């Protein structure tokens, strides 16, 4: 898309017409170009009228962004009609803000032209799309430091809304977490073993948490604990009395 010039080609579809302009500023800029008017001295009444006409032609009457611009133009037009006080040298042109935005937009459109050219050049070249699988691609090692992690914690704490984070503390024991694990396991099957709810390499706090979780759930009659003989694996059985899913 370069400067989108297209006479309203009869009854083209809504979508096509919409994409003819990249927004109200684009449309406005093209009107200013077509009319060959000075961007610093826009004949606002004329441009406003044309803007509304094009909006109608292009069936953009329902497009919020265009409506907003139309309202803005009408407001500027009204302000321009207000009598200026002779003595007041501090008259601020109501068009100033619009001009600034148009110039900014136009500048960006220049960059778009550059990007478009560069992108097209690149699109005209293929990179290697077939890659030889050498062996399993190893991941780059990680460089981590505790200080970095703590700084991240600090940032999170600063950013988080207080109510959400006020209770952030390392938990010596995480019984709730362990309860969730046990329930998850029992949701999948009626019987489980100790090893199903505690990983082999579990930390002491995890083991304790799991133990407390099992006792707690047994107390709530969500499960039954059994041991067939001393030192054998603990068997965990789901109790139907458990809370409704």
């Amino acid at each position, binding site marked *: 898309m370069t400067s989108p010039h297209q006479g309203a080609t009869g009854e083209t579809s809504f979508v096509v017409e919409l994409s003819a302009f990249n927004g109200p500023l684009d449309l406005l800029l093209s009107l200013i170009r077509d009319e060959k008017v000075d961007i610093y001295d826009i004949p606002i009444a004329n441009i406003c009228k044309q803007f509304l006409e094009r909006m109608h032609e292009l069936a953009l009457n329902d497009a919020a962004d265009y409506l907003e611009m139309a309202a803005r133009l009408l407001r500027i037009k009204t302000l321009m009609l207000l009598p200026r006080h002779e003595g007041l040298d501090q008259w601020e042109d109501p068009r100033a803000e619009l001009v600034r935005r148009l110039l900014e937009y136009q500048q960006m459109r220049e960059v778009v032209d550059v990007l478009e050219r560069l992108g097209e050049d690149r699109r005209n070249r293929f990179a290697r799309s077939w890659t030889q699988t050498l062996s399993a691609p190893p991941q780059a090692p990680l460089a981590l430091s505790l200080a970095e992690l*703590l700084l991240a914690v600090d940032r999170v704490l600063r*950013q988080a809304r207080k109510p959400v984070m006020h209770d952030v503390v390392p938990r010596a024991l995480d019984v709730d977490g362990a309860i969730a694990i046990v329930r998850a396991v029992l949701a999948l099957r009626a019987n489980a073993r100790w090893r199903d709810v505690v990983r082999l390499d579990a930390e*002491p706090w995890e083991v304790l948490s799991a133990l407390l979780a099992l006792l707690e759930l047994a107390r709530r009659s969500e499960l039954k604990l059994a041991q067939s003989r001393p030192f054998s694996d603990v068997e965990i059985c789901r109790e139907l009395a458990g809370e409704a899913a």
Partner: protein
Amino acid sequence: MNSLAKLLEAALFASPRPIPTEELAVLDDEASKAAVQSALDELREHYNVDGHGVELVEQGGGWQILTRPEYTEAIERAQMAIRPHRLSGAALETLAIVAYRQPIGKAEIGEIRGVDVGAILKSLLERGLVEVVARGEGLGRPLLYGTTPLFLEQFALRHLEELPRIDELAIALRTSKPAEDEAGASTEPVPAGSA
């Protein structure tokens, strides 16, 4: 090289799969199959005689340009040696939240960070720093995440309790030397209210 050989080189380079001779002939209406064959020979010769890091081989039902076997080891080694990857500020924050709040669901992390953390969580999972440790209660029984032993190893922690308590954090930050210089901080995507 003649122009057909150059065209074939470009096509073989760009194609995601091996290309049979007959298909290569489609590239140039005027080229006979014999011409294609001789251009392929020329390309292969060129790679061999001229000393290239790649070679032209016929396999998998077609022609392919492959790196020469003698270089694969160096390439693999280099992939290992590529400078260690630093976690982004966003990833570190997510990791920090998981470390202190585990087991914790994606939604809750996202709520604390104020952004969707799906992609970041996925990459932390892939890196083996977090893992699914449970399923939560409630709608859809969300997956709950926790840190892995590798996490402890990477941060040289014996266990999670070695992480400073939140109320000790200010002191810990003052005493621990922030990794390296500003190099790390400059790539930090987070507008440091502190640094």
